[in-house]
């Protein structure tokens, strides 16, 4: 029982780039939220490389014929607008990334969605670097 192998040290992950994509129905709320994200990143010492918004909203349109039978001119069009905003962060360790994302996601305002794309950099596995020649 005493000779149990010591648990392997779990190394922290390294994220080369983290891309936040936020979408919402109100551009003003997204702007405030992105300001908050950038402020939190700067306080935690995270590099922000890019921060931009799409110039126009993405519009999903549905056309409906109001009249039941004929009269094509009585058409109405409904649209759903989705506004986008993007923030790119650079060079985060795993613990920093977890802390920051937890903080940001907890403060996500109503009517907004957040997509986080993480680009993790990993070492080449041993079985590719060394054992290739043996086989």
């Amino acid at each position, binding site marked *: 029982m005493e000779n149990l192998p010591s648990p392997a040290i779990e190394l922290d992950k390294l994220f080369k780039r983290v891309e936040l994509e936020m979408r919402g129905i109100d551009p003003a709320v997204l702007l405030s939220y992105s300001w908050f994200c950038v402020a939190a990143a700067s306080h935690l010492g995270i590099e922000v490389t890019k921060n931009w918004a799409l110039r126009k909203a993405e519009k999903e349109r549905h056309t409906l014929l109001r009249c039941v039978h004929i009269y094509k001119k009585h058409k109405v069009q409904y649209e759903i607008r989705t506004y986008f905003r993007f923030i790119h962060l650079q060079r985060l360790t795993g613990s*920093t990334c977890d802390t920051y994302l937890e903080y940001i996601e907890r403060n996500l305002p109503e009517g907004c969605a957040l997509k986080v794309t993480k680009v*993790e950099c990993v070492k080449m*596995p041993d079985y590719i670097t060394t054992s290739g020649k043996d086989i």
Partner: protein
Amino acid sequence: MSLIIKHCRSNGITSSFNLRIWRLNSTSMDVAAKKGEEEEEFRVLDILKKRDKVQKKVARRNDVQPDRADRMAVDQNWGNVWPGPKTFHPSSVPLPIRQGYVPKGQAPPGKKANAELMKIPNFLHLTPPVVKAQCEAIKQYCTEWPKLLNSEEAIEKHYPVEVITSDYCHASPSIRNPLARIVTLRVKLATLNLDKHARDKFLRLVGDRYDEKTDLVTITADRCPARKQNLDYVDYLLTACYHESLNVEEWEKDKTEDDMEYYDWDKNASKKSLVQWYLRMKNENVDLKDEQFIEYDISQIPNAESYKNAVSSLMNDGENESTVNNYAKEVRALLGLPEKLVV
């Protein structure tokens, strides 16, 4: 015994209850009788409606507190007043906010009883000092980026593999998003250190997942339901392709000129005709076999090396102005023709 007691008690209660009902009935009947006597007077027609004009005095309470927003200290800690996300409340916010759409020339309505202000999510709990204080508190869980990995080249050298995943956070009935399972693995082909044969085989195995311009191999897995499974699968794919490309199978020796992925001048008809032409120039009638043609040393033929390069680049890089012009120049040099005249 207890049963009997219970029975007796229930009997007693019901009897008293009945009594009460009886009394209630009697009293209500009495009241109705009295009312009937009062209402028997005729109503008076009030033509001038003098009675309605008399305004009732509204009793105002004297002990109503003044608005909380007016009593706030200037140097208060705002984080304590508004600690978390909350719908807008006019009495808690000491700001002269106005919001709403009105016709031109009018001022938008003020903050009290203003639905426009309550609809939009506010950031009153995330003011700059509060954000700073909260970040100071959570900074202990952060770690610094290693200082030696200070450039893209350094990162690429030590950590050549990229694993791309996505997390989703949104307001919906389910907190799970099926898109979160997708895992993408990217690696530069040069970092795999493959030899010529293995590289060719790897590219044939990988197919269109290789991008020539960036030299990146991108493997995406989305067939498993969980991210961990997809991650393992991506690792497996890379490993399998790598080791398979290192293997040399028996049938790979049957590779002919048609299967070549690039133009090898030494094994092609161009070299054969060049050597034949050179030998005929020297009046040597030697019958060479195919292997001898391939092994023939062209360094003794003047301008042959650059001619070889010109033909190879024409075949490998495709026909464009520079390769064709280069080919023309080399052919003239090889045959000893004069340079092209520029008119």
